């Protein structure tokens, strides 16, 4: 039994040297390799990374669903299990459907009843756009509707920490837009929100800060603008005979330049700027092609570890 004391929420979320390795038939697979992070109360943080980066494993440990092999996670100064038992955490896990034979309203009410200080059920149904289908049975919903109900279940408990693990996967464009606007409304109530995603755009648009993970490590951690500049690199290719690569490297927005015969390849942090100046100074440049470096490529660059053959860790 945990005694509620005033000012119980302090300390934020702290990960210290957190590590987890799973065993597989091919030997041990390190999923999370010792990460440190601190998230102050009230911040909205994106946990960004490709599949197999260790995002879900980290979340499992923060929720007390999985035991770290090394290090610790603490949630508002408590162990994850204790924070969960005190009803301080709400989560929308990556995989999950709903149990059948209840109406949407009944399911949300049932979950609300498990928590000490839930939101009003009707208010939650309104907020998540479920009021119209609140009488429908949970096993007769579409994929997008199911995701909404799962979101309602995560927030109806009025958690101090809301964790969303790739929440928009089954949603269409319109659904995503609505989802994020509700999430932001909820976050604005002083809630701490952590969401995992592998879309840079989502992290950029909806988080105050991005924690970038790859191969079980945090490879960057900072404001979204900063991360975006680091991983938002683009490659510009053009045919431009007889040019000095050093001149190209000096163009604004260019990080590095290479020449292969008549072809030049520029790695750009701001390709818009580069292309403007390039055409101004070298109007005869042709076959211009700008390609966004995928997140995976950016991660490889940041980690400097091309161990892409590492098996994707999905389940222990």
């Amino acid at each position, binding site marked *: 039994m945990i005694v509620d004391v005033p000012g119980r929420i302090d300390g934020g979320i702290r990960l210290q040297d957190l590590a987890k390795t799973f065993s597989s038939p091919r030997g041990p697979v390190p999923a999370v390799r010792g990460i440190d992070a601190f998230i102050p109360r009230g911040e909205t943080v994106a946990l960004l990374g490709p599949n197999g980066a260790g995002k879900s494993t980290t979340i499992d440990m923060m929720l007390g669903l999985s035991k770290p092999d090394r290090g610790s996670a603490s949630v508002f100064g408590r162990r994850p299990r204790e924070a969960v038992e005190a009803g301080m955490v709400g989560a929308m896990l990556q995989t999950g459907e709903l149990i059948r034979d209840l109406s949407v309203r009944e399911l949300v009410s049932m979950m609300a*009843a498990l928590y000490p200080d839930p939101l009003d059920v009707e208010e939650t149904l309104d907020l998540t756009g479920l009021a119209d289908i609140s009488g429908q049975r949970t096993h007769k919903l579409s994929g997008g509707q199911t995701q909404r109900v799962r979101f309602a279940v995560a927030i109806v*408990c009025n958690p101090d920490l809301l964790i969303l693990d790739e929440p928009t996967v089954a949603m269409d464009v319109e659904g995503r837009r609505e989802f994020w606007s509700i999430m932001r409304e909820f976050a604005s109530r002083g809630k701490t929100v952590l969401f995992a995603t592998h879309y840079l755009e989502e992290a950029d648009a909806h988080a105050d800060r991005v924690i970038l993970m790859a191969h079980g490590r945090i490879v960057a951690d900072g404001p979204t603008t900063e991360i975006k500049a680091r991983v938002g690199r683009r490659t510009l290719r053009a045919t431009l005979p007889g040019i000095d690569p050093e001149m190209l490297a000096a163009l604004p927005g260019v990080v590095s330049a290479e020449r292969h015969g008549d072809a030049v390849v520029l790695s750009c942090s701001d390709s818009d700027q580069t292309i403007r100046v390039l055409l101004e100074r070298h109007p005869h440049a042709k076959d211009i092609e700008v390609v966004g470096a995928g997140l995976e490529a950016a991660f490889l660059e940041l980690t400097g570890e091309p161990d892409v053959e590492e098996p994707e860790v999905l*389940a222990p």
Partner: protein
Amino acid sequence: MSGLVYARYELLRTFRNRRFWFFSLGFPLIFFWLIASPQRNRVLQGTGLTYAAYYMVSLASFGTMISTGARIAGERQVGWTRQLRISPLSARAYFRAKVLTGYTMALLSLLLLYVSGAVLGVQLPAGRWLAMTGLIVVGLLPFAALGVLVGHLVNTDAVGPLIGGLVSILAFLSGTWFAITSGFLHAFGQFLPSWWLVQARNVALDGHGWSARGWVTVAAWTAILAAAAVWAYRRDTGRV
């Protein structure tokens, strides 16, 4: 309090499930009428009990109780168990709700069998009906734990065959379908909790319940299976 709300919704879900009505309540009744009604007043050899009295209790199905496992496996499959784990619902309240639901199903099935038995001429003093029911309630305890254990141990693909196989074997060895009065099967059966469950029918014969051995067997199985169920629940936190 919150645990009670959860249990209430669990019951509601069960009663809304058509498969429950069909398999848990329908099956035992159909078997009972098929077997017992043609020879309702005949005494089953070696038992002293009429067909109706014998099968009324024999079919008080522990299978209904174990089928809790199928429901749990289904909830794990869709990831719902993990969702519950990150709520303040305690393990104790979770078990209580599952066991309560299992008992409600099993006792409802029993009630229908009693009514059918009475229709087919089983007449007992009120005290014996009660004593018999009491023994069945106790005898179902190990199976409540077994249901939770199975549900947290195997996945949905395996849970159907496993429960089906377990119930068939236990029913065969415990004298559900025919009287086992001597020999190896008689000696062996007494080690099984299901044996004692169906032995509750002897109350109808002479008012005597279980021997000390019966109580010890049921208690031991309850303790072992409950410990195993708690173990299975604890280790089962991963993604399925």
